[in-house]
């Protein structure tokens, strides 16, 4: 082998690129990182805890740089001990700390399910208000990238039936930052869901400290004919489907739930009553999930205003397979939402 074999080809002269939008915009990941930074600065009693979050900055880079800024006491790496991570957060919260845990993949929450369901969520209630659990559990959820059965699940349904827990589920970088800051400020325990497919989404995220209220949905797009209620990745999909429907003359309103528990029933029901035609879009399996709850509630409370049945878009009733074409079958997509809108619009 000669030096010439390994030498790199000469680079072509590059024409200067036009500054792209994304240079000014922050990603969902950066927005979360910025929120954690601002919160660590604000709350002396806050610390971060999780697997590979310190030096490495987390599997998705959300805690990058925070170890250097805040030190190993407040940015703590742990072994693979999900129950101990959440237990540590609960105990620390009971004495007034404000821990933020990272569970690398939401699927692994099964490892600390007992801690969340039987302790964290009930702490305030069962001890008659004597303790609070102001902790946040951040976790990466959702499919669409070939992660297979144990790295792709949407876990909100696992917690929907658990009084005491708050489930926050942002759909864009601006909300991600504001909702994370509000979650950290909150004295209730928050399960903060970060859909993996959204990490690279970008927006102009205000650099300063701001909060987005918990328990408040947002009308992401106003419309008159059909309402789509969605959260996380289903929101950008719903917005795209709404755009397509507009081309067919159907005006779609998209309600971004933002907090899944306790959810903003007033906004959801007002939109349902206004349009009289509703689609609920949800990535998790259909049975017993968010879609089931929303559909039941809307049907009960807007019966008189509804023009037809609530149409549900969900994941199929199957685990999430590895093979991408198979995964595409199991998980709902923009086409499914578009079809549901057409079906609702018939009434």
């Amino acid at each position, binding site marked *: 082998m000669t030096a010439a074999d390994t030498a790199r080809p000469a680079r072509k002269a590059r024409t200067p690129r036009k500054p792209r939008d994304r240079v000014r915009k922050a990603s969902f990941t950066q927005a979360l990182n910025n929120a954690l930074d601002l919160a660590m600065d604000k709350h002396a009693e806050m610390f971060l805890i999780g697997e590979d979050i310190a030096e490495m900055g987390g599997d998705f880079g959300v805690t990058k740089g925070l170890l250097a800024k805040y030190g190993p006491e407040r940015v703590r790496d742990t072994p693979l001990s999900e129950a101990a991570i959440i*237990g540590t957060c*609960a105990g620390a919260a009971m004495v007034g700390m404000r821990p933020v845990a990272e569970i690398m993949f939401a699927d692994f929450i099964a490892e600390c399910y007992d801690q969340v369901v039987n302790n964290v969520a009930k702490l305030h209630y069962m001890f008659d208000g004597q303790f609070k659990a102001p902790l946040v559990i951040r976790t990466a959820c959702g499919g669409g990238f070939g992660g297979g059965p144990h790295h792709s699940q949407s876990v909100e349904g696992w917690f929907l039936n658990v009084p005491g827990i708050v489930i926050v589920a942002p759909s864009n970088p601006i909300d991600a930052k504001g909702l994370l800051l509000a979650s950290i400020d*909150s004295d209730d325990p928050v399960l903060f869901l970060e859909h993996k497919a959204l990490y690279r989404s970008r927006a102009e995220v205000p650099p300063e400290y701001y909060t987005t209220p918990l328990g408040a949905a947002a009308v992401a797009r106003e419309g008159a004919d059909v309402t789509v209620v969605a959260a996380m990745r289903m929101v950008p999909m719903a917005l795209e489907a709404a755009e397509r429907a507009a081309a067919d003359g159907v005006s779609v309103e998209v309600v971004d739930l933002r907090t899944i528990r306790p959810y903003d029933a007033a906004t959801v029901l007002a939109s349902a009553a206004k349009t009289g035609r509703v689609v609920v879009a949800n990535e998790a399996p259909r049975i017993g999930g968010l879609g089931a709850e929303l559909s039941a509630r809307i049907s009960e409370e807007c019966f008189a205003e509804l023009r037809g049945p609530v149409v549900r878009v969900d994941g199929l009733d199957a685990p999430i397979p590895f093979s991408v074409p198979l995964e595409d079958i199991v998980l709902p997509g923009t086409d499914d939402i578009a079809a549901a809108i057409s079906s609702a619009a018939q009434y």
Partner: protein
Amino acid sequence: METPTLLGLYRDMWLIRAFEQGLEREFEKGNVPGMLHTGLGQEATQAALAWHLEATDTFFPDHRCHGINALAQQRHGGNGERIMAELFGKATGVCSGKGGSLHSADPAVGNFGDNAVEGSYMATVLGVALAAKMRGQRRVACAIIGDGTVGRGEFHESLNMAAIWDLPVLYACINNGYAISMPVGEGHASADIVDMVQGYGFECRQVDGNDVVEAWTAVGSAVEHIRSGAGPCFLEFKTWRWQGIFAGEFRPEAEVKYWKEERDPIMLGAEALGERGVDHAELDSIELGARDVIEEWIEFALESPAPDPDKATADVYVGWEVSSR
């Protein structure tokens, strides 16, 4: 140990026994809802633990720790009757009756509550200890657990994390020989829990849990060790519970006889006090005094009102109200 200390522990052991026996009686009458687990036979270990824990320390009591809860409540709060009322599900209980036997807590006296999922607070105790360490407070966080808990993943996650972070945790493992019906040696790799714990590399000792002097001395030095910042400590108390299983007694007759007649911690305490010249009349008056106190607490619990109906949906969230029916 000074004789007044031993007398104090003897008094505490009697308070625990009278509490549990009074509770058993009321349970049978139908005045105490739910399930009943008692600490009968384990009074020496419980009195020793309660003695050394300050109100600013933290303990997580298990399902047999009514006695520790009551002692802490009485000593640091002056209102032990509120533990009794909690077990009756009454408004005057420490958790307004929302917790009961398996979830009585009062942070003002260091009681951070049981978790009826046995052993789950092996994880919670880490956070309390970590907070104390981060704040530079010389406080002990104590998890009181049964031998059955050794099978839980959290048991091992906790010991590992306490070891790597040098946390101020006192693990008090009450090895009474059985988890419901499972003998400790059949359920675990060793019938001596310390054999399994040693590998975690911190201070770890086996103690005669029915000898109040030995138990008190061991807890005292463990607490001192932890307060000095030397890291966690694990104590295994070898003892035996008088309560069998719900269906009744399942253990060999000779074993029952041995523990009840030869190893009763109160009897052993009385013998030790006798050797120090304390007379029978004084010992009897301690027993009667404890029984009187407990009858007053039971009276208090019986007469207390049920919780306000609003409590059913109060405090689900801090930031949201949950609507009632």
